[in-house]
């Protein structure tokens, strides 16, 4: 029996019946307007676009395309709310609004998880257990800061910046909205949030939640649209701060664009995280950690452990176990509670993953792709591992942002550090070893904003997250996350 047949035969008797979550729980409206000044309003040009389910290409709802005028209206609403209401609201009161929001997210968690999975394509297991609980936790954490800013280490009475323009990506739609809104509101700013073009729905449900929480009108405005909407927000003269999460390419354009004014800027950009495995690492946990590091959320994770650096002495065994484990991943309907790997978020992203993966083979790497059966409709990419990858290969340098792992080897800790740092990015790394002193030695030398030791892809509202170098600047989460929204 080959390794693959063995894995398949094991999967055979472990197979589960489908256990789909009910899509009707999402309670989606057929169409959504822009959330401006506390109300859903029609965009000036009455233009709508469809948000589809990437798992089957069906239209979930239509959302408004915000024009330059609409963005202007949203910014004016945020400015008005800042001047007249929010800047006069005490920290104690701001805190209570945020606690309310956190609670309502918890109450509507199941609905939000279904919305997220339908709109994004991520497995319901992840939206239910990671995205939504963490989003609630972020509001809960920053709620507590709102009346304690004097004690946050930035001097007495730190002031908010004013109106914050926040542009978020499609990989963790609600969670990224929470990461942006919670600290901004706690610090006393008002917001204009621009969700990603392909995943606007959970932010619009969040708008309903803000209404239920009776957050004063205009404190948060949500404008849906494409890149032009984001560009209008970045260029708007009455926005005091831009916070962007997305690609390094777009981050560069935004940094250049705000260079002419005095807007504050924080950027959370791309990555090519190294996951470093030493030969003394506990192998079972480590294999699961590698899998989680690259296949969590279909690899649509800026901090994904997309470069596996394995110590040569265990490289063969690790690769053998990895390939076998990849074969066991359940790929398919995201709404099924048994699913491990869901749909690729969009046709455009699928094309990018296919294009970069093709370089893997043409540049000489050895490809292992899961033999899983992919659904006919929707956007899918089978989990893939490339071995024999060299540092010069494109799959070792470019962010693929998909379920594709590149495996490289090293001999010494020095070589591991040198290879891990051989990138323009600096977001996240993993280190696997039972030897604490070596883990800390490596961690000290990695140029990365987040380092996971014997774990990967962990997030918490108290833990600062963000990159070095071309992965951006500024932190989200923790006390550090307040700095991005205070005039300090």
């Amino acid at each position, binding site marked *: 029996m080959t390794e693959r047949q063995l894995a398949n035969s094991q999967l055979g008797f472990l197979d589960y019946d489908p256990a789909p979550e009910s899509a009707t729980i999402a309670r989606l409206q057929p169409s959504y307007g822009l959330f401006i000044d506390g109300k859903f309003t029609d965009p000036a040009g009455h233009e709508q676009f469809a948000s589809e389910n990437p798992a089957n290409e069906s239209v979930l709802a239509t959302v408004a395309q915000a024009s330059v005028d609409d963005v202007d209206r949203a910014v004016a609403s945020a400015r008005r709310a800042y001047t007249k209401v929010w800047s006069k609201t005490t920290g104690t009161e701001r805190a209570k609004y945020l606690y309310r929001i956190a609670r309502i997210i918890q109450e509507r968690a199941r609905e939000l998880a279904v919305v997220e999975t339908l709109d994004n394509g991520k497995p319901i297991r992840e939206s239910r257990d990671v995205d939504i609980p963490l989003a609630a*936790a972020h509001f809960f954490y920053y709620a507590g800061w709102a009346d304690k800013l004097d004690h946050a*280490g*930035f*001097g007495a009475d730190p002031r908010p910046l004013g109106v914050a323009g926040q542009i978020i990506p499609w990989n963790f739609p609600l969670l990224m909205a929470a990461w942006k809104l919670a600290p901004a509101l706690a610090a006393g700013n008002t917001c204009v949030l621009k969700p990603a073009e392909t995943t606007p729905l959970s932010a619009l449900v969040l708008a309903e939640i803000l209404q239920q929480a009776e957050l004063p009108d205009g404190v948060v405005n949500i404008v849906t649209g494409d890149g032009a909407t984001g560009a209008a927000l970045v260029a708007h003269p009455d926005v005091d701060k831009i916070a962007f999460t997305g690609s*390094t390419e777009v*981050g*560069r*354009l935004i*940094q*250049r664009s705000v*260079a*002419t*004014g*005095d807007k504050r800027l924080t*950027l959370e*950009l791309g990555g090519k995280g190294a996951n470093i495995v030493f030969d003394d690492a506990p192998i079972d946990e480590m294999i699961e950690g590698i899998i989680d590091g690259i296949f969590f959320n279909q690899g649509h994770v800026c901090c994904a452990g997309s470069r596996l650096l394995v110590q040569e002495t265990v490289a063969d065994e690790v690769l053998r176990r990895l390939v076998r484990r990849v074969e066991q991943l359940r790929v398919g309907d995201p709404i099924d509670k048994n699913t491990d790997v869901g749909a690729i978020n969009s046709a455009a992203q699928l094309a990018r993953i296919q294009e970069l993966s093709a370089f893997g083979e043409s540049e000489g790497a050895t490809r292992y792709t899961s033999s899983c059966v992919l659904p006919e409709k929707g956007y899918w990419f089978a989990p893939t591992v490339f071995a024999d990858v060299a540092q010069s290969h494109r799959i070792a340098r470019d962010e693929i942002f998909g379920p594709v792992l590149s495996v490289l080897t090293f001999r010494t800790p020095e070589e591991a550090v040198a290879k891990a740092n051989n990138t*323009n990015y*600096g977001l996240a790394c993993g280190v696997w070893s039972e030897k*604490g002193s070596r*883990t*800390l030695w490596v*961690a000290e*030398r*990695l*140029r*990365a*904003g*987040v*380092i*996971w*030791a*014997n*774990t990967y892809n*962990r997030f*918490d509202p*108290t*833990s*600062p*997250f*963000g990159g*070095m*170098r*071309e*992965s*951006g*600047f500024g*932190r989200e989460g*923790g*006390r*550090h996350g307040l*700095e991005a929204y205070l005039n*300090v």
Partner: protein
Amino acid sequence: MSDRLDVRKTYKLLINGAFLRSESGRSYEVTTAKGAFLANVAQGSRKDLRDAVVAARAAQPKWWGATAYNRGQVLYRLAEMAESRRDELADHVAQCEGLAAKAARATVSRSIDRIVWYAGWTDKVAQVLGGTNPVAGPFFNFSVPVPSGVVAVICDQDSSLEAFVDAVAAPLCVGNAVIAVASQCRPTPAVLLGEMTATSDFPGGVLNIVTGLTDELAPILASHEDVDGIDLGGVAPGEASELSAAAAGSIKRVLRPDGRDLSTSLRRLRAFVETSTVWHTIGQ
């Protein structure tokens, strides 16, 4: 004595711990505030800056790899060296800035005290800017401030020593290597201080000082791919935008003058540090 001819000094660049003329062979004339000839100063070039970046990149891990206690000692040693040459520094500050002797001495005193202030910060900054994070899970999670790496400082054009010290000592203190472009018209106090680093146990390349034309040098550093951050304190307001835009090419950290008083906050210390957060599992 009056018939003795002065032995004049050549003012050189400080790159990789060595005092060099510009590879371009160029120099320019610097005058006192009153317009009298003061010195011929090396006019740094693109190649000089590239050499300085290479030196800074190589030196930075050594500087950061030293203990915080050791970095504090080195900075304090610089203050000691400056203290013993106070009169010489004051003389240059007076000539460059057109200050009376008493005012110049006060400037030098404040500058030296500022170096001492930063010397004391090296082993405290991690405690003030970092800490442990109580994550909801079986992990020990801590955040530490680490240096951005190689930082370019376009120094203030007016305050030849005091602003220079503040802008340069802050990034050094937190473990960066620095390439400083001294005040174009008042460069000699900075050059003197650079000479003092040679007797202060600074590893070569940690602090590089280039003199020359700011308009020529600043854009080279702003667009240099291997510079991690840039302080535009000495750039005319109209030019800061263009340089900031150039800095976006490699997502540099940019510190721009915005009218806020930096001396009373830790903004200079925070400007060129990164927060690195480590999660480690807890278990038996």
